[in-house]
């Protein structure tokens, strides 16, 4: 039993590192499908984190949340995104406005920045600095992915990463929200991805491309 407990606490402590790795890899990824796999991996890390937390704090609600994350974020959303990529039959590159090297440097900078940002709070909140920094880093890099990627689907993935960050922040600071609220948020997320998928098809059908940076008829 001690061994499992020890493993759970180690998993909690080291998961931040794995999350940083997914952030950096996502910054270099050139294809949508790579981004989807990385997103799925990121959610799997978060699932493991929730499981460890559920074990350490003996919370049955947390097991339910872990199951939800596993079903919705690790499996359902990536599956839906893969289906969209396949049905679109469009080139699967993300067309970034920064080069891969620049993106990595920016992502690394954002990770450093988030460590500085959480420094004053981690003392008073009595939470693990690494975890909270990982949450903020996910929020920031999600926002960065959204502004620097031109393809509609890549922006959706940026949004999902941003949402992951907010979810992780809730998890580290409050051990999650009440279960009803969590379920509602997951439902919104699922519907949101569904609708964005629908709009991606509409954009392709009306504009015959997926480069949202070229959608600029409406101005002023």
């Amino acid at each position, binding site marked *: 039993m001690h061994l499992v407990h020890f493993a759970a606490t180690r998993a909690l402590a080291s998961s931040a590192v794995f999350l940083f790795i997914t952030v950096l890899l996502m910054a270099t990824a050139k294809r949508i499908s790579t981004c989807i796999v990385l997103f799925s991996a990121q959610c799997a890390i978060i699932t493991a984190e929730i499981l460890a937390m559920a074990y350490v704090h003996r919370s049955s609600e947390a097991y339910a949340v872990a199951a939800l994350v596993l079903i919705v974020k690790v499996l359902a959303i990536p599956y839906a995104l893969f289906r969209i990529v396949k049905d679109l039959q469009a080139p699967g590159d993300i067309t970034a406005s920064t080069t891969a090297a620049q993106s990595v440097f920016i992502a690394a900078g954002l990770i450093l920045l988030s460590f500085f940002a959480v420094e004053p709070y981690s003392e008073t909140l009595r939470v693990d600095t690494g975890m909270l920094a990982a949450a903020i880093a996910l929020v920031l890099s999600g926002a960065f992915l959204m502004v620097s990627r031109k393809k509609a689907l890549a922006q959706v993935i940026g949004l999902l990463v941003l949402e992951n960050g907010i979810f992780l922040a809730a998890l580290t600071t409050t051990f999650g929200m009440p279960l009803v609220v969590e379920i509602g948020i997951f439902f*919104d997320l699922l519907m949101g991805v569904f609708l964005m998928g629908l709009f991606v098809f509409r954009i392709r059908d009306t504009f015959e491309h997926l480069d949202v940076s070229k959608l600029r*008829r409406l101005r*002023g």
Partner: protein
Amino acid sequence: MTLLFPLLVPLLGAATVLVCRRPAVAVRVALAFGALEVLAIGNAVWRIRAAGVLPAGRYLRADGLTSFFLINTGLIFALVLAYSVGYLRHIPAGRFSSPRWFYGLMFLFLFTIMAVYLSSNLGLLWIFVEATTLASALLVGFYNTEGAVEAGWKYLIVCTVGIAFALFGTIVLYLAAVRGGVDPRSALDWAVLMSAAPNLRGAQDLLKLAFVFVAIGYGTKIGFVPMHSWLPDAHAEAPSPISAMLSAVLLNCALYALLRFDAITSRAIGSGFSHTLLLIFGALSVVVAGFLMIVQRDLKRLLAYSSIEHMGIAALGIGLGGAFGLYGALLHAFNHSIAKSLLFFTAGHVRENFGTLRMERIRGMGRALPWASAALVIGSLAIVGLPPFGLFVSEFLILTEAFSQARYAVAVLLLAALSVVFGALLYHFQRMLAGDPESAPASPRVPAADFAVMGVCAACLLVLGMRIPSAFSSVLRAAMAVLQ
């Protein structure tokens, strides 16, 4: 049960309308469910008036503030529904642009808005505000043209990201409440938070952080500058009845969410911080939107920027607080929703007859469409805040509060912005109204239903401008009492 009806009716309505394949049947079913919904809302308002606070189960609750916004939503929804019957006749049929999709999505949209007003839990409130975006995004993109798809995509992405910030703010508030000793199971319940607020003074930093994120998040949905980028596109590209719903119902719904958070923050750490933030957002919105109105070319974009400006005025009223500030702000939100609906309904007629909303291509509207022109003139006189219309009273109240608090900077800024807006609207509309029409209008007659709808709008504005009925005034005072 009283509170369940206004939620169940639109859900059932959406489900029923979606299975009606024949357009004429779908319209009739929608009207029937709409009438039922208005009755359900009326019943809820009546019960709240008698009971003061109406709790229902763990997750539903209604009080004076809810009641005020329910009246607003019920009135505008009834008007929009009546107007949409005539409007839908000239929508080209497409795969998703049929009456059943229009009404089905509109009922879903209404359901999410009612759920925002009736949920007692701030987490659920967030979930349903996000759901309003999801339910209305397809309505914004209803025409499926290039512009509509672009506006729908922008609306979906900008609002989802904005609202994500509000979720973060909600989580931080939850964190502050749990650290302050509130039971985690009820730490998102608004009434519980409100009574526990004085004990949360210790968590001042967290509460401030929470309010900043919530103000940015829900502010995106309200359309505060600089988070307003989605608003003109969505309002301009959506069908006119939906533009009216967005401007008159959705923006107020987001304002309601922000008011709930403002009340908790003000009670816990004093109103200084949150109200200053609202004053900043309000002033920015009023000034920037006012100047952008001068350069607009599209009628509905012009009206959309005017919505941003008026939401800014409401934010200024809330930020000033005091005896008249909040009263004026609530009254202003209500007045604005009626005047803006009237103007969007008129814009629908303009588009039908001139085939465009580009204002430089519209000439001689006064001769071609006398009745629609009358509505445009009444609506624009009301929206710039001239007496004897309701917006004059509410703007005057807010200005009075600014002067009585000796906040001359706010008062002068508001007056200056109002004069810019006045000039901009006068310039645009006199060019549209004057002159000879280039071609004969397609259907100059205003259908009886639309005539009645616009008449009701004008009558409400006039009544609220002359004297606020005592029953309505007591609703407003009950709404204010909830927040203090």
